[in-house]
């Protein structure tokens, strides 16, 4: 965020009494953040290049300047002395809030942004909620900006973040300010709607509740949401996201800043795909085939039974999913090695690509899975040719591939069919044993993205029924096969332990540490892994 620290020259300045040295191309608002002072801001957004300095809420006093200066637009200078909270700066800020409330409906009780609104926040801060306005407020109504996005003009404060995101980051000049002065509003070309694949970000950058996703409308209040740091599983970019849940349901995904992966952004496919794909029948307890029928059992019995059967397997095939976590793939590989199945394949669903021109690293990639790289790293091969062939009379072990589009009788002849997964497709029902495992959202673990960045995700949901993380189930099986489960080989019980076992056993991952992967991830084979990243600036949106 401060540009290239090595080439920019450092300057020292004082902000609210604290000395700091920052690169000379830092703006005052950013420098203030570095000393822990969050100057209010509306038009400024760290991910949008332009600094129009138009909302005027970030005005600060700079000694020697006759007028207050917008801290977002002014670069630091050697010896500068900044007061962000002087009487005059505070009064200017208060007045901006008051003036914004002049025509603001104050419909916080029904506004989607309540609780995460930068107008509400500052209004409380400056104690301005009671507007002095005796006049009738302007009423402008709402408008459909995109198939899935509504615009509430009355709440809009014309900060133009949304317009500038589209223009400068998406490079699709399809959202604009129409009219001027107090009649100004945000608009598309008459009759058109935004169809850009990254449009959802305009909702995130909106500092108030003027832009809302229709499918989130009235679904939940901000303060009822549980938020979990995670990684988008819908393509191989692996955008860092926050998963918002209510009562164990995912209600939305929001991008989480990572300057190496997705900046402040994510694509609309990613926003929706997880929520939509999360439906379907889940196995909720281990199922074992007894007299031709799948019968639910407890984990202890199931694992012992499966371990017994696996001892008899010598030939067979393996299928994995690129949606499985690194740790699960690792333990699956370990298990396969143990029983003597080599190789194994995975299929990656393909889709159309889309690039975010203003941050070209962020692409909705053709590989619609988060961990194809991880699967490859653990010795599985990408398989592009149509459907998986029927194992015939051999054994088959499947990790998390839903076996969705296969014929109903697929695998019926197999000598042993182990299904470790979380979907009950017709083909999966042919298994001799179905071990229910969690989806990534129900567990902790890591994915490896398209460029070999290993990223952690956290548990956002309670597992369905008795489902457990695949790595846990597989590690138990391995230890049962090793020594009958007598404790000679301890199976890990924490994701961090599974991770440590994995990196120790996987040369390509040797320099990774659980802690340094942290919230920002780490690249395989780079020293970057050792450098913890600076925390992203707190972003109100």
């Amino acid at each position, binding site marked *: 965020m401060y540009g290239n620290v090595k080439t920019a020259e450092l300057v020292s300045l004082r902000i609210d009494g604290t000395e700091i040295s920052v690169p000379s191309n830092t703006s005052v608002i950013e420098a203030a953040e570095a000393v822990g002072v969050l100057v209010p801001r509306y038009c400024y957004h760290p991910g949008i290049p332009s600094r129009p300095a138009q909302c005027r809420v970030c005005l600060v006093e700079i000694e020697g300047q006759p007028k207050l200066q917008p801290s977002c637009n002014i670069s630091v200078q050697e010896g500068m002395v900044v007061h962000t909270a002087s009487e005059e700066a505070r009064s200017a800020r208060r007045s901006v809030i008051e003036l914004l409330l002049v025509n603001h409906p104050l419909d916080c009780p029904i506004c989607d942004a309540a609780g995460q609104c930068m107008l509400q926040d500052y209004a409380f801060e400056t104690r301005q909620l009671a507007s002095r306005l005796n006049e009738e407020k302007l009423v402008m109504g709402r408008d459909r900006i995109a198939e899935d996005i509504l615009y509430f003009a009355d709440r809009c404060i014309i900060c133009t973040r949304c317009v500038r995101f589209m223009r400068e980051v998406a490079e*699709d*000049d*399809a*959202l*604009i*300010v*129409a*009219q*001027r002065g107090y009649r100004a509003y945000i*608009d*598309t*070309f*008459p*009759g*058109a709607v935004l169809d850009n694949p990254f449009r959802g970000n305009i909702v995130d950058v909106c500092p108030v509740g003027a832009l809302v996703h229709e499918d989130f409308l009235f679904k939940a209040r901000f303060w009822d949401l549980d938020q979990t740091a995670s990684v988008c599983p819908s393509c191989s970019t692996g955008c860092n996201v926050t998963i918002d849940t209510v009562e164990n349901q995912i209600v939305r995904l929001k991008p989480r800043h990572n300057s190496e992966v997705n900046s402040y952004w994510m694509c609309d496919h990613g926003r929706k795909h997880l929520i939509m794909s999360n439906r379907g029948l889940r196995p909720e307890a281990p199922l074992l085939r007894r007299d031709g029928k799948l019968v639910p059992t407890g984990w202890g019995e199931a694992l012992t039974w499966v371990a017994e059967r696996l001892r008899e397997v010598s030939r067979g095939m393996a299928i994995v999913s690129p949606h499985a976590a690194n740790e699960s793939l690792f333990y699956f590989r370990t298990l396969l090695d143990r029983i003597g199945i080599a190789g194994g394949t995975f299929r990656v669903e393909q889709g159309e690509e889309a690039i975010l021109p203003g941050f070209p690293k962020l692409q909705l990639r053709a590989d619609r899975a988060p961990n194809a790289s991880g699967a490859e790293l653990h010795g599985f091969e990408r398989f592009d040719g149509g459907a998986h062939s029927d194992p015939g009379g051999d054994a088959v072990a499947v990790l998390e591939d839903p076996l969705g589009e296969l014929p109903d009788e697929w695998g019926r002849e197999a000598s042993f069919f182990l299904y470790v997964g979380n979907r009950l497709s017709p083909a999966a029902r042919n298994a001799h044993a179905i071990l229910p495992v969690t989806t990534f959202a129900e567990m902790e673990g890591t994915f490896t993205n398209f460029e070999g960045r290993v990223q952690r995700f956290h548990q956002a949901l309670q597992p369905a029924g008795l489902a457990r993380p695949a790595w846990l189930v597989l590690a138990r099986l391995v230890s049962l096969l090793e020594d009958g489960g007598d404790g000679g080989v301890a199976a890990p019980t924490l994701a961090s332990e599974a991770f440590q076992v994995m990196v120790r056993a996987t040369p390509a991952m040797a320099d990774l540490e659980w802690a340094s992967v942290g919230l920002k991830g780490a690249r395989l084979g780079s020293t970057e892994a050792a450098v913890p990243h600076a925390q992203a600036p707190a972003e109100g949106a």
Partner: protein
Amino acid sequence: MSRRIHPSVAGAQPFQLAERDPEAPLFESAEGQERLQAVLSRYPTKQAALLPLLGYANELHGWVSKQDMESIAERLDLTPAYVWSVASFYTMYNKHPIGRHFIQVCTNISCHLNGAQRVLKRFLEETGTRPGETSEDGRYTVIEAECLGACGFATAVQINDEYHENVTPERVSQILAGLDGNGS
């Protein structure tokens, strides 16, 4: 409009004319092409030709339609949305068809002091319209305007591309009669 226009002024033709042809093609004509090329030749960027071309659309059609904005956007490599953003900023590009006589009465301070409100009222009465509304016969649209830069000659009224100065309520009917003589 077949006379050749010098490129230096091609983008600056008065664009509120009494005679206009709402159906005329914007650029699919020899004149249109000539105007477009002449205007483009005067600026280092295509985008700078936007105001001149919006003016041209207004001049030709009497207003700027969605279709006009789309074809201008296409010629200048801009998005239609951008063109709409700019067009809507300025008050002189009519966003709807207007009457044959577009009557703009200045009510700003100097005219205000000299009875502009009464002049406005008289125009509305005599044309039987409300502000911004076009009379049923399509003849008149009367609006209140900001300072027309003729404050010493209050009240100033602009009708299409002509100024009428020192207008008093008493002169209104005479002015309207004069329009029907030559304007329609």
